[in-house]
């Protein structure tokens, strides 16, 4: 493939936003605008003719690689399986449960300083946190703890493998 075309292809591919021909011209100033436009059209046509899983789309004043629309359900299937991500809020709630368990919700609320109902529910759904029982005190509050899945996902043999705050602080001592 012609070198300028490979450069343009790589630029479109790696760009975080749709890449305009003007921007390409700024990056490779030796190549004329017309020529850049021609090469982009050529690339688009190639991907079109190839009929593979991706193509170049003109969008928002620029060009961008995309996966074919009719394959969206497969991609959703891939992304859906990846529930192994947590929002920072969920991570904090999980941290309090992990280190302070067995723990009641009021205590998690207190430590985090917010109502954790939402993130706690999410963690229960993801099966990182479970209901361990109830306390025999007024109101019979629910007690929460972590699950086996939690250990699995975080790659821990048991809870004693969780790093302690002391160990975290030791790492902070910059040399």
């Amino acid at each position, binding site marked *: 493939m012609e070198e300028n075309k490979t450069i343009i292809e790589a630029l479109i591919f790696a760009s975080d936003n749709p890449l305009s021909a003007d921007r390409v011209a700024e990056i490779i100033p030796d190549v004329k605008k017309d020529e850049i436009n021609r090469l982009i059209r050529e690339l688009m046509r190639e991907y079109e003719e190839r009929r593979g899983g991706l193509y170049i789309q003109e969008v928002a004043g620029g060009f961008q690689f995309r*996966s074919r629309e009719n394959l*969206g359900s497969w*991609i959703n299937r891939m992304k859906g399986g990846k529930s*192994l991500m947590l929002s920072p809020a969920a991570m904090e709630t999980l*941290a309090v449960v992990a280190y302070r368990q*067995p723990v009641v919700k009021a205590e998690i609320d207190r*430590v*985090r300083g917010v109502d954790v109902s939402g993130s706690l529910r999410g963690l229960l759904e993801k099966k990182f946190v479970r209901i361990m029982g109830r*306390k025999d005190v007024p109101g019979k509050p629910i007690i929460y*703890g972590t699950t086996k899945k939690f250990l699995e996902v975080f790659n821990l043999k048991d809870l004693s493998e969780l790093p302690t705050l002391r160990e975290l602080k030791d790492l902070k001592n910059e040399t």
Partner: protein
Amino acid sequence: MGYEIKLDIFEGPLDLLLYLIRKNEIDIYNIPIALITEQYLAHLDMMRSLNLDLAGEYLVLASTLLHIKSKMLLPVEEDEHDEDEPDPRDELVRQLLEYQQFKEAALKLETRPLLNRDVFKRGFIAETGADYDDQEMAVELNVFDLVEAFHKIISTVEKGDSLEIDVEKMSLTEKMNDIMERLTEKGDLTFAELLGVSGSKMMLLYTFLAILELMRQRMIRVYQGCSFGVIRVCLAVEA
């Protein structure tokens, strides 16, 4: 010449020592310890005079060098100098070679085609129909983030709260979780069943402590049918 420029780029005392050995074109297996010690100390002085932060490790190695030097100066009787007598430099040489091995490996790693420096993956894409949620905000799961999250929270919580955690406490917690799980499953268990085949004395102790803690927190109840009868343990509140 060029010392001053080099001073702050040593990655530690071993790195400085390797530099001196290379500069003097010395056989690493036969280091003239007096010469190297002298140059090493001169470098430390220079670093000090430039107010560079001298990590304690530099001084430790200085004293090691001086110690080896003094050992080398001890008169050795001819017939005493046999093969069994280890060279006082051996340990240092081994350490230097090992360090050099990794220093080289580090340089080699850096010459690989690195992601985001030499090669790039695709930029962000917004697909049609794909539910991206707050994925950009989301963090990957690892234990380090978990302990950091906890640290962040408790450093804002009032002091005096006994939030310190240690390995023992978490071992106990592990045991408590285990007991609660078994009780939820089985309804109730005898004391003996719970202590059961806990294995080591240590595990037995943890199990016992866990039972006490769960009682204190009113999460389980322990009762005895009659004196000398079987001690039974059950959940404080029916599941």
